[in-house]
């Protein structure tokens, strides 16, 4: 399933880019993320618990950042699998400076498999958008909370 959209982060572009690459920030912003451990260059092992009302599932997966073009774009690849199936999101995030901060537009695809694919297609679109929305909302909160602190190095 193709997915695209954009979100306004109220921070300057360079700061937005750094936040989006900071594993500490990503760990807090990714909905349901329990742990995020570095396993390679721009590659992390992630455990997450997705909860939506009655539906819940533990996912074990990876987060990877690819094709980084500092301060302007990069690819974010998130994949996870668990008992209820697997999911993979692969999106190109493009940053541009706009009034009030940075516009982050995303363009990519979401793949799911297993039970969630078989019974959840009716809801895949709306729930994917909700997860992305939550991610950016948390990111905005993190940006505000972290103030001007330097992002973690060596990522």
């Amino acid at each position, binding site marked *: 399933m193709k997915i695209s959209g954009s979100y306004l982060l109220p921070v300057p572009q360079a700061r937005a880019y750094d936040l989006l690459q900071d594993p500490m920030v990503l760990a807090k912003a990714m909905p349901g993320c329990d742990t995020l451990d570095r396993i390679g260059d721009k590659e992390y092992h992630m455990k997450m618990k997705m909860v939506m*009302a009655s539906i819940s599932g533990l996912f074990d997966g990876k987060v990877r950042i690819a094709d980084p073009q500092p301060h302007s774009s990069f690819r974010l690849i998130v994949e996870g699998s668990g008992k209820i199936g697997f999911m993979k999101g692969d999106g190109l995030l493009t940053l541009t400076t706009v009034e009030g901060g940075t516009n982050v537009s995303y363009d990519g695809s979401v793949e799911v498999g297993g039970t969630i694919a078989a019974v959840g297609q009716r809801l895949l679109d709306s729930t994917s958008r909700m997860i992305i929305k939550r991610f950016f909302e948390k990111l905005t909160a993190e940006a505000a909370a972290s103030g001007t602190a330097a992002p973690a190095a060596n990522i």
Partner: protein
Amino acid sequence: MIPQEFDYSAPTTLKEALQLIADGERKVMAGGMSLVPLMKLRLAAPGHVVDIGRVSDLNHITESGGVVHIGATATHHDLETSPVIRGRCPLLAEAASHIGDTQVRNMGTIGGSIAHADPAADYPASLVALEARIRLVSAKSDRTVAASEFFLDPFTTAVETGEMVLEILVNSEEPSEGYRYEKVAHPASGFAVVGVAARIKKTAGKISLARIGVTGLAPRAFRATAAEKLLESGGDIAKAAAAVGEGQEANSDLYASADYRRHLARVWAARAMTVALSRAS
């Protein structure tokens, strides 16, 4: 289709129920029409289910002081057939009659349905159009939330940890008010591809109040306020209907793309408004 092993409690008093769910580790179940299928698919695997179906006096449907009180465990069938609902907020009875099939309506409850918050469920369109309030209680709190602030996102509501839906409060409608719930049912699931609830009041031959609730179109049920304003300011139905869904991100799935859904919402909004207007006196 076998759920994971779970513990089960069936309290008979509200106090007991609220104590059981206080720490948020246990899952509330009423009719089980949403939860049980998810558990059988193993998409939901609660360790402990608290069945509030046996809590006494939780399925009341009463009217006092111009307000209709609907207990959380009132079934869809109860709503569909209740003289109070049919007399005082018939829109809700009409919506209830569209839910699932007879078996589901006999088991499923209004509290369970709204707490589950499926973005294509039938009730939310009517509840936002009726400006209903949802009363939430926990062992420590008792508060009321407007329907429009209750439904937040797909499967996400304002219910906090330890809380459960106690009752739904709806102001009694005047008999002169016109109403209609129209729905395009998905041929497999029966869920609303789109569902539109309309209320129209007339004063001196003119529309004095319009409330339009929409479900299925967007991630959550919403009131089509632009359309309402157009109706209330003398705009015709076609113009008002064309404004339904403005600014909303439309859902899409195998059965209906976002564009088609948006179009359906407008067509059926017009049809719902037409019937509601014809019923208003």
